[in-house]
């Protein structure tokens, strides 16, 4: 693969992304955290994260930060996904397979309503 050309492409992507950010009003940052400890990985957390990235790409969601974290400490609930919208309290979801992950992105991240049936109550 032509490296220089591909970094040129990336420069273009960057400018487009900055343009998009300018247009968009600051709607408050949204963060999605996926637990990627040993138990999480064994339970399918990599595929859960992949489903989330696919949704962000498909729906063109620009203000979402996705990151992974180590063991969250709720082994029997893995894969675990946490969603933080702006200043709202963190919502923790358990047993999140790719299908549930896609629902969380469309209903909670995009629609603003947590998917209650998969929320782990503290």
């Amino acid at each position: 693969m032509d490296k220089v050309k591909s970094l040129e492409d990336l420069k273009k992507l960057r400018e487009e992304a900055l343009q998009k950010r300018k247009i968009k009003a600051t709607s408050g940052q949204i963060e999605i955290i996926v637990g990627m400890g040993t138990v999480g990985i064994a339970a399918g957390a990599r595929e859960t994260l992949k489903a989330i990235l696919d949704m962000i790409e498909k729906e063109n969601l620009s203000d979402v930060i996705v990151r992974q974290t180590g063991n969250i400490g709720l082994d029997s609930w893995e894969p675990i996904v946490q969603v933080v919208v702006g200043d709202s309290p963190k919502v923790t979801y358990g047993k999140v397979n790719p299908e549930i992950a896609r629902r969380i992105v469309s209903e909670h991240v995009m629609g603003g309503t947590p998917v209650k049936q998969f929320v782990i109550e503290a």
Partner: protein
Amino acid sequence: MRELALHLLDIAENSISARAKNITITVTESLVEDRLRFVVEDDGSGMSPEMIAKVVDPFVTSRTTRKVGLGIPLLKAAAEASNGFFKLQSQPGKGTVVEVEFQRSHIDRMPLGDLASTFITLLIGSPEVHWVLNYITDNGSYTFDDEPVKAVLDGVPLCEPSVIAYIRQEIREGIQAIQPTEPSLILAK
């Protein structure tokens, strides 16, 4: 875990937990030498000999002050069952090197699995780490160093939709271009 790529992800997560700033992963797959190996090198907090003994064999000691998972012992057993080995070298304050090798054609060897997904998960999920990802086969080698990419992006996050697409394509194509073809699959055709 049914894929080596998932074990690789697990090992790399340990490096992230050890607060490594630089993590280099090298996966080597050679049909000529009949070996499949991966090496994860980090500059994280490292481990004492006592800690190493515990992560490699959690049943040796009854110390319970720190939680230790079964990821490493299972990987070690899998490597040894496939005519390979597991080696962990670490120095407190310096970092850790984990080396795992399998006989590639061994009947008990786990499939490599989705290496690209493991790489993408690490890159996007832990952007604070400087990643160097290498994949080497008999056909050539592929390296993804995220430093130039982050320099060009200059503050635009890796989880920007168009950037996710870029990284996914770059890594998938880089791996696919040199990935060996399974002889058994050729025979099956």
